[in-house]
């Protein structure tokens, strides 16, 4: 429409004149939607842009200009807008309006398949949780896969094919491809090059194989930023064949991690976390299990270790050799390595005494040598087949890599290039410059979910459908297969991967569902296939489809394969996948951007992690910009002083610095890939140059010491102390009060959080966010300390800066029976239910914030500004809103509600059957998502309930109990199991 003139404004004024109150308000906003009007305002009132730090949008301007009206209009007497009920024309079967339906599917946000359940309301998927039947999940779900629901609604996803950046019809692509395909078939595929990330879907792999078979001279390249060549190479050197490894940690009581973050970024971490905590016997039921971690970064696995040795990345190999030598393996120990001898000696003794029930795990990102040594040590300790087993890589992998593709392009051999997913232009190593190479390819097709950096330099972009929109299947970390089924039609018209690959082979209109089905029928056989298929879809796993273990024999001459010891020079730079952004492919996900990284507590951007002692030596201060240089490459990154970071090593997480991620992720953080050499993908040397500039690193926790409050806040103890104090009676819970008792005769909801089991993985935080419509507020608001997560994970350090002990403490609302927040609320907005839940009634809250002021745990969150609805950070979140939870408006206090909507649903279900709610019938979102079952929720009036059982432990304690708030949420302390020998040494 044409720009608005003052005359038009007067007309609008007349239009609005006879509207009142809320209605007037809304129509003003409707007005603000008109771009021309906005433009008019901006040219009329340019200065309003600086009214407060943070842009004032057009609506904001209207709010200001109409503030006087707001006083009248919003004055509590707004009428509800007219609402409509739009029933179905034909009611779908099995759908009951107002009742959720759950579907089982498989997600693979981090590469390997994880079983998930999709919660849908009236056909709208809005939540993802783990599938208890799936081996890689057992009911838990990691942050990436939980947050995937947000991407489903992300309006920044590619919504149409792009031809040279211009929207084009998919039919046009088909036409172009058909002609090209006939030509390709004539020349047997010469000139066709295919680049894919590692494949995890058997049916997809089969489709690709078929394509390559049809075009024998086509070439297939592979690329992933999470390069794990070392693992397979190591296995090949050890056993003569590339083998995948499967650990059985529930059987291992002595675990040595050579920088294997098996609780964090390692495939199968959810399962490993459960097995590991099982091996320690969580919830105060102790076994004598011990974890040693040697690592060159800070990881949650290292944080949970009983003994941790931070070493520079180049030193993992020497340390491994030293350990191997001590275990009596034919390896020449290095002259010098950073780990003290007493430590290795004690470790070796510990291992040797527990042969067959120990395990040495080499990290995915380690060199072949380290993997080789790990295999050898496991063989020496007789762990093969007991705590560790091997299986053949079930899927074919490409023979060639990105470097070779670039060579081919340079040689002009590449006429047609298919990039099936991934984002190589962004995440390729710095010395492989695809951005300039790809435009030379006459016909480059990028197939992916976003119009990202790679799509920008390709001739064609074909939008990929979201996993929740696609048929498919995936392999889990342990080689077991499970189906993926769509729960919605492609919202933005994406193409399902199976269909796309089939159509590339000229099979137009192929039905993805049929393709998967046929593939598995070929695998399973025709006998009662339908029953098996339907059963598998229902359970979310293909029963009996698990790669079987192979007997692995360590080659006698394995140690010949060991390379000469690497030389260590100067400061080393360690690359690591970002705990919240992974490789950066999910950078446009607001939930993940705002998810406080474990240990660093960083949000909205990455930073160079440096040990405070090193920083002091180099004259680097917190938030100071540092120039990282490797050869001719350099990046400017703000510094974060990180206790426990290995000396002489800085870490930079991948996943930052996206330029075409979308409105949320663009320009957040720094691209580590621009410093990454192809030869050394995981660590390299680097020069640090502090710059005279500052850039604030945004974190959600600023203080990490307990200030002599260890007993009141997060308790820790050791196994030795426990056994010593076994006689001591349970600490009495506070129960004396001046006031007469309020009796809780029905249910009494309570929660127990086991600090020892908690690995700080954030799964509960995201689970809570997606269950309870918790808004993301963006970097500026988080910087001001206004993040909204109902459940936070406090993290405290004990000990020096070199290698401090870390304790994670999840802190939701404590639901105090003598709640301090309640008696200061003037409005009855926060009150106590007859079941002991500290209720928050949003629509009664006027936002005095006295409740938060009086909360000793500071678990309440406040909508300082409007963070929801039209003011939400991204419209995507609106799609994921849980209809059973109120979306909070500006000026309202909120906090953990013990998932009151779940309690009510369960209570009603039970009441309809005139029975009590059974223990375990439901649980809170956080408890549901927790891989280690560190959070237990239930009715403490029921002595048989798990939560009551656990609360009866003598270790059970209430946070800040001396304030006599009688919290319903209590804790079990963290328990370490230090090796006595090492403890003795460190004692001295």
């Amino acid at each position, binding site marked *: 429409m044409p720009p608005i003139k003052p005359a038009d404004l007067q007309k609008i004024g007349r239009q609005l004149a006879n509207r009142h109150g809320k209605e007037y308000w809304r129509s003003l906003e409707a007005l603000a939607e008109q771009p021309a009007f906005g433009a008019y305002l901006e040219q009329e009132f340019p200065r309003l842009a600086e009214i407060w730090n943070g842009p004032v949008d057009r609506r904001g301007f209207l709010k200001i200009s109409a503030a006087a009206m707001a006083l009248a209009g919003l004055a509590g007497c707004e009428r509800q807008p007219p609402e409509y009920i739009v029933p179905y024309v034909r009611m779908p079967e099995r759908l009951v309006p107002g009742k959720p339906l759950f579907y089982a599917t498989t997600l693979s946000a981090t590469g390997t398949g994880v079983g998930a359940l999709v919660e849908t309301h009236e056909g709208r998927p809005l939540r993802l949780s783990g599938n208890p039947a799936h081996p890689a999940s057992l009911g838990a779900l990691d942050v990436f896969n939980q947050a995937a629901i947000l991407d489903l609604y992300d309006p920044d996803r590619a919504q149409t094919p792009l031809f040279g950046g211009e929207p084009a019809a998919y039919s046009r692509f088909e036409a172009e491809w058909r002609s090209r395909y006939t030509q390709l078939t004539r020349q047997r595929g010469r000139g066709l090059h295919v680049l894919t990330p590692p494949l995890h879907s058997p049916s997809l792999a089969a489709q690709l194989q078929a394509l390559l078979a049809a075009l024998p001279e086509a070439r297939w390249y592979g690329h992933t930023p999470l390069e794990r060549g070392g693992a397979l190479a190591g296995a090949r050197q050890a056993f003569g064949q590339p083998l995948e490894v499967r650990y059985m940690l529930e059987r291992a009581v002595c675990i040595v991690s050579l920088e294997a973050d098996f609780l964090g970024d390692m495939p199968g971490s959810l399962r490993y976390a459960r097995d590991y905590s099982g091996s320690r016997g969580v919830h105060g039921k102790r076994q004598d299990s011990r974890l040693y971690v040697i690592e060159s970064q800070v990881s949650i696995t290292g944080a949970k270790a009983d003994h941790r040795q931070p070493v520079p990345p180049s030193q993992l190999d020497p340390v491994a050799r030293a350990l191997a030598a001590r275990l009596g393996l034919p390896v020449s120990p290095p002259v010098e390595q950073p780990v003290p001898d007493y430590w290795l000696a004690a470790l070796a003794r510990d291992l040797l005494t527990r042969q067959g029930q120990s395990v040495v795990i080499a990290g995915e990102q380690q060199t072949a040598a380290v993997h080789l040594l790990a295999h050898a040590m496991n063989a020496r300790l007789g762990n093969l087949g007991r705590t560790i087993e091997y299986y053949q890589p079930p899927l074919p992998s490409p023979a060639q890599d990105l470097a070779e593709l670039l060579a081919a392009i340079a040689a002009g051999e590449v006429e047609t290039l298919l990039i099936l997913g991934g984002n190589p232009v962004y995440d390729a190593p710095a010395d492989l410059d695809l951005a300039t190479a790809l435009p030379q390819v006459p016909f480059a097709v990028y197939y992916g979910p976003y119009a990202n950096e790679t799509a920008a330099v390709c001739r064609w972009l074909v939008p990929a459908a979201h996993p929740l929109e696609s048929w498919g299947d995936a392999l889990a970390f342990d080689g077991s297969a499970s189906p993926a089924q769509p729960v919605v039609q492609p919202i933005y018209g994406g193409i399902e991967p199976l269909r796309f690959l089939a159509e590339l082979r000229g099979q137009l209109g192929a039905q993805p569902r049929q393709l998967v089905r046929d593939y598995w029928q070929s695998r399973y056989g025709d006998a009662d296939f339908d029953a098996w298929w339907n059963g598998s879809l229902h359970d979310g796993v293909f029963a009996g489809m698990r790669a079987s273990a192979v007997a692995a024999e360590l080659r006698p001459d394995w140690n010949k394969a060991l390379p000469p010891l690497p030389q260590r020079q100067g400061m080393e730079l360690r690359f690591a996948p970002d705990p919240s952004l992974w490789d950066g492919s999910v950078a446009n996900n607001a939930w993940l951007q705002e998810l406080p990284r474990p240990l660093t507590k960083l949000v909205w951007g990455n930073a160079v992690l440096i040990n405070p002692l090193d920083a002091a030596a180099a004259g680097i201060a917190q938030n100071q910009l540092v120039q990282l240089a490797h050869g001719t490459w350099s990046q400017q990154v703000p510094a974060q002083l990180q206790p426990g970071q290995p000396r002489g090593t800085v870490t930079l997480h991948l996943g930052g610095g996206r330029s075409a991620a979308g409105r949320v992720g663009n320009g957040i953080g720094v691209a580590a890939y621009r410093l990454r050499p192809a030869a050394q993908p995981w660590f390299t040397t680097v020069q640090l140059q502090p710059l005279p500039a500052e850039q604030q690193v945004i974190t959600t926790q600023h203080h990490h010491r307990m200030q002599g409050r260890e007993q009141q806040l997060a308790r820790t103890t050791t196994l030795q102390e426990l056994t010593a104090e076994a006689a001591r009676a349970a600490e009495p819970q506070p129960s004396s*009060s001046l*006031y007469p008792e*309020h009796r809780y005769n029905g249910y009494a909801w309570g929660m127990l959080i086991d600090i020892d089991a908690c690995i700080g993985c954030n799964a509960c935080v995201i689970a809570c966010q997606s269950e309870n419509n918790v808004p993301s507020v963006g970097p500026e608001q988080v910087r001001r300390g206004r993040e909204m997560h109902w459940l936070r994970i406090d993290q405290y350090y004990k000990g020096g800066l070199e290698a401090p002990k870390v304790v994670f403490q999840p802190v939701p609302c404590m639901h105090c029976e003598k*709640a*301090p927040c*309640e*008696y200061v609320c003037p409005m*009855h907005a926060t*009150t106590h239910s*007859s079941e002991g839940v500290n209720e928050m009634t949003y629509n009664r809250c006027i936002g005095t914030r006295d409740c938060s002021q009086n909360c000793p745990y500071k678990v309440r969150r406040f909508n300082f500004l409007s963070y929801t609805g039209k003011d939400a950070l991204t419209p995507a979140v609106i799609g994921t809103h849980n209809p059973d939870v109120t979306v909070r408006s500006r000026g309202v206090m909120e906090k953990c509600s013990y998932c009151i909507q779940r309690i009510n649903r369960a209570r009603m279900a039970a009441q309809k059957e005139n029975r009590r709610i059974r223990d375990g019938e439901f649980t809170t979102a956080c408890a549901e998502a927790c891989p280690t079952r560190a959070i237990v929720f239930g009715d403490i009036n029921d002595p048989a309930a798990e939560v009551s059982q656990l609360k009866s432990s003598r270790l059970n304690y209430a946070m800040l109990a001396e304030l006599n708030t009688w919290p319903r949420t209590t804790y079990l302390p963290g328990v370490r199991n230090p090796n006595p020998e090492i403890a003795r040494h460190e004692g001295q």
Partner: protein
Amino acid sequence: MTERERSWGLLAGFGSVAELHAAIVALRAAGYRHMDAYTPLPVEGLAEALGQKRSWVPLITLCGALAGGIFGFWIQWWTAVVDFPINVGGRPFNSWPAFLLVTFEMAVLVGACTAFAAMLALNRLPRLHHPLFGVGEFDLASRNRFYLAIEASDPLFDPVRTRQLLQQQAPLSLREVPP
């Protein structure tokens, strides 16, 4: 009769409290009752001299304050215990110590308002029009002159004799107050 309609009364102005006081005593002795004095500032003793009873304001105010206090406590107790008892931080429904503050405030509020209202009511205020304002020099009553007014409504009032009586008190001025 006709006299009364012609005038509201007589107004005598004096230069000092003492003279005014003397005049009052004299006229009361002569048996006049319907009279009042007008002074620029409160003066002790005149009220007694004029035989006015002591003010009702304190008693009325006391009633007001009590009513306010009682209502104040009642509304808190009734809402918290009877109408909608809610468990707030495990506190008893009838948290009477916490209710005392509002009780006190309500007593003060209502008390103060009654005091003011009572003052106005007993003084028959507001009364914007009054015969006395018709007398040209009456503005001195709020400056430095002390007036005595005999109202025609007094049974003994007689334009001539009363005027003479006042003359004997040697006022600085003596005026007829038109109705």
